[in-house]
């Protein structure tokens, strides 16, 4: 893990006004909503607002691959990550953001064509993971368009998932944001 990565970790743990700034701000620029399974799975429950149907289905699958359902908790699909990103981009007043996402998804399909000879969602489960693995290989130092897009995709997925009902309660089992009575939080003040 890089310093920057751990910096993020600390940032969210702490404190007063450390440099929450770009990382957090940019990350926040992503995340919400209810959205059903996609792609090979049953159809999306909400109509896309910014993306085309196929783009949204692709994003939904990518998000679920990044944070999948497991025995512990549901994943990004159930948490509605793709629909939230779609909603935020639809109302965005920053055309360059919109362009970045649209061309990023196109880069994913282009990479998949190169690796597997077909679009991402047409590939088998193994082929999809292989394409995403290739995108993630440059996570620390992205070079190709698909590698650059992976950073944005992952940041937005993380932000949307861990601020969702599923992320906070089912996955993280967060205990706070409640009125405490009696014994208060913490280990020991002595």
């Amino acid at each position: 893990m890089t310093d920057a990565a751990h910096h993020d970790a600390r940032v969210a743990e702490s404190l007063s006004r450390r440099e929450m700034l770009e990382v957090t701000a940019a990350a926040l620029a992503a995340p919400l909503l209810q959205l059903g399974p996609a792609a090979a799975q049953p159809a999306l429950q909400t109509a896309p607002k910014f993306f085309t149907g196929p783009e949204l289905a692709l994003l939904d699958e990518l998000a679920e691959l990044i944070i999948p359902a497991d025995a512990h908790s549901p994943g990004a699909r159930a948490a509605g990550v793709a629909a939230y990103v779609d909603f935020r981009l639809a109302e965005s007043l920053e055309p360059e953001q919109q362009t970045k996402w649209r061309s990023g998804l196109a880069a994913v399909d282009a990479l998949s064509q190169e690796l597997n000879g077909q679009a991402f969602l047409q590939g088998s489960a193994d082929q999809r993971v292989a394409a995403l693995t290739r995108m993630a290989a440059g996570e620390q130092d992205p070079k190709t368009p698909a590698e650059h897009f992976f950073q944005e995709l992952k940041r937005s997925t993380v932000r949307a998932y861990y601020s969702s009902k599923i992320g906070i309660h089912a996955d993280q089992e967060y205990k706070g944001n409640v009125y405490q009575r009696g014994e208060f939080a913490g280990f020991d003040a002595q």
Partner: protein
Amino acid sequence: MTLVRVPPPLAQDVDLSKTYDAVIVGSGAAGGMAAHVLTTRGLKVLMLEAGKKLPIEQELRSMQWPYDHPRRGDAPPGYHSLSFNEYTIRTPPYAKSSTFQHVMSYVGGWGGSDYVKNILVDEKDHPYTGTKYAWVRARALGGKTNIWGRLALRLSDYDFKGKTHDGYGDDWPISYADVEPYYDKVDLYLGISGVKENLPHLPDSLFQRPNKLTFGEVRLRESLKRMGRVLTPYRAGVTTDGLKHNRYRSKCYGRGACDRRPGGCDIHAVFDSPTGLIYPAMDTGNLTIRTNSVAHEVLVDRNTGKARGIGFIDSATHKSYEAKAKVVIVAASTLESARLLLLSRSPQHPNGIGNSSGHVGHNFCEHVMGPGVTGLVKDLVGKPPTLDDGRPGGFYIPRFRNLKERQPGFVRGYGFEGSGGFSIFPGNAMGTPGFGAQFKKEVRDHAGAFIGMGAFGEVLARYENYVDLDPDAKDAWGIPVLRFHYQFGDNERKMCEDMVVAGREMLETAGIEVVGTDEKILTEGWSIHELGTARMGSDPKTSVLNQFQQSHDVKNLFVVDGSSHVSASCQNPTWTIMALAWRSCEHLADEFRKGTL
């Protein structure tokens, strides 16, 4: 156990035809305290606040879940918060030629811009020029106390008598013994949480129930003890036991929303000026408030040279008004107060009122921040989640440099603020590499195992660090704006290098693996602890105010905010601002009754 939900008192009508006993410019920690003390002593007071009176509980929404907000706390499209990059690459005015409709300081980008978008100023309306500076301003009743970080510390004679200790700068005209009774009053009136440590360099307050430390924090505390250093639970300006005398504030219920927003507490367990000071002052019947009132001049009596009131502009209508008073109290924040004094030029005070010394705007100081460390407490990996953030803050490590020994390379010191344990958002997720089931599990297993801390260091007061008025640039109301001539120096850079080394050493000694360090110094202004610019002193030639924050030049003019501080120390200033304002306003009330003002 019931929450207090008492509506604000009914406002009194403003009567600008009348001469008030005192007019106060600003409603934050300093202005609020002045209002409290003076109205309690029976003075008829008019308070002018440049910002709006906000329905603050609706702004803060402290317990709103991220997923119950349409943008997970973000402001709607059209709002932009300045980033470190923007502060670094560009020069003020930062919002100039921005394509965004509204531009906020970096605090807006700190996880919840929608909750502060009406509290922070719009940089587009409030430009400034000169050197790089991350100037955070809140124009609203209560000012920055609506969203402050809550760390409530005392200064000691290591600070008040800094020059005596190490030869640098100037001593304050007062010592700890002068201020101690007023710190006590502030503690008891507003409530503060913490643990007694008996440190000469960080005197104890009269504490209410402390907050507990988490597992990792206790481990660090034990290890530091062996190093001769102290880690103490966050000394929070929060009432943890409640305040019988204040019906506008609830005690703290450890709800845990304190750390995921830019601050603010919608049950007012955290001190804020409106519920802590201003509403009770209104209840005396002696306080009148006018919001949307942008002060631009301390008016002067042409015969006596004394202050006679305040010239201000209504922020909504842009109409000009005068407020008349026998005493003028400036409490607009360190930089805005300096600006107001400099703006107040008259034949009697050609350099600005109270500025015969030429020191207004100078000796500007604050805290430097940025360096910090993150550690991983291995024993906590994979442990089930616990409630770790149900408290107003984590811990504080008081200054340990340049107390008995002399540190090579720099004078003065720094303290660390930090915390460890679970919080609502697993910050480690951003930095955990990869994707898929393994990634997800790793985030879960490590979420509560990190501990992080960042330092706040004293920036030396230097005459050559100053603000003045820009000859050309004006704000949205046509008022000349501040121009910065301010930069960190070598002492700050050396100190920041030491912060990283010392932070790393402290975690490692505790057996906590250091997984990240920050060496970067954040932009000047980032700490939001600007101080100096109208310092106190015994010599009218080298200081602006006497020990009671009273102008050397103009007897009925007081400046009771952080601008009066002679040095920054490394302790967060709010509690000291209020203790000094209390002390000065008691003196003011005495002199007012004697007729000497």
